[in-house]
């Protein structure tokens, strides 16, 4: 009798172990839930957009593209750590 009572619990324990793990979701200053790859993706998107904007509007004024790369790197660091 007691075995019958324990059987479902034992099964549930095994099922729990088999449950696939999902990537860690993080809540930061971004308005959506993200994992580290999402935040890396957002950083790359911003880096490319900033570089194209820099080429079009700021580089002709004499500002080197390396400044844009440095800004993008800082932004990427902040997004990946705190986004």
């Amino acid at each position, binding site marked *: 009798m007691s075995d019958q009572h324990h059987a479902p619990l034992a099964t549930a324990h095994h099922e729990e172990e*088999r449950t*696939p793990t999902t990537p860690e*979701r993080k*809540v*930061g200053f*971004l*308005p*959506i*839930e993200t994992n580290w790859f999402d935040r890396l*993706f957002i950083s790359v*998107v911003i880096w*490319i*957009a900033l*570089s*194209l904007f820099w*080429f*079009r509007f700021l*580089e002709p004024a004499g500002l080197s*593209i390396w400044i844009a790369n440095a800004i993008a790197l800082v932004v990427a660091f902040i997004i990946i750590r705190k986004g």
Partner: protein
Amino acid sequence: MQSKRLGWILLAPTLVILFFFGVLPFIYVVYVSFHQWNPFAVNPEMVFNGADNFRQIVFDPAFLNSIGVTVMFVFFAVLSELILGYVLAQAFMRDFPGKAIFRTIHTLPLIMAPIIVGSVWKLMTTPSIGIIPKFLDEWFGITMNIGTSAPAAFATVVIMDIWHWTPLVTLTLIAALVSLPPDPFEQAQIDGANKRQIFWHITLPMIAPAVVATVFIRLMDALRTVDEVWMLTGGGPGSATRFVGVHIFKEVFPKTNYGYGSTISVIVLYLTIVVCWLLYVTMLAPRSKKD
């Protein structure tokens, strides 16, 4: 642990194919985009030129114009296909005489190759022999010539795309509508909701994933449209239908400018990914809860 290994084994063939036919060509295109390369020139070697192609692209009026034309085309075509596809899907959810035949005929454009679609529409819109200019002239007194009129050419390309791809939207939305449970609709009717409220508050939220997936597919297809347009208008008149795919084709093949063509391809891929990602974020992504 064993099921995890089995999962990787089952995925392996797809991943290998994806790597060789998707990832490797992409890496190669990115590599070429940082070079000046004309393989048919006196010096066919690739010459590394840093980010010069990207510097050139943001000042290239032909490229910027092609982006503008493509965005307009995508907006009108995909929006029309979505609305028309939904209306047709709702129509196919009801019974009416000749439904099976109509559904088959309606799906036929999907099985036609884009180059054939372009050729057929070229025949139908050529002023001297085409059926469309003939009837427009006889019935409404309108002279239509897509070889000289930019708005006519653009509108024809949009209508051709709608004709070709609306059945795809209809089929995916039928699948989504069929799978909806009847209970929420019955409860809404009992609570006195009208058809508009049911559409906005029940139907649309429940089919949103299917709608977004369909928009993704159509958006990606429409952004790289080449063959239909190439057959119908060749990108003309002027640059009225010179979509970004046609622009890449003209840059790479007639001019054999492989480096710059690759740069345009990379930028178009970037824009496609960003647009699709924004669409996903605004419609489907889970919101973070900040208490």
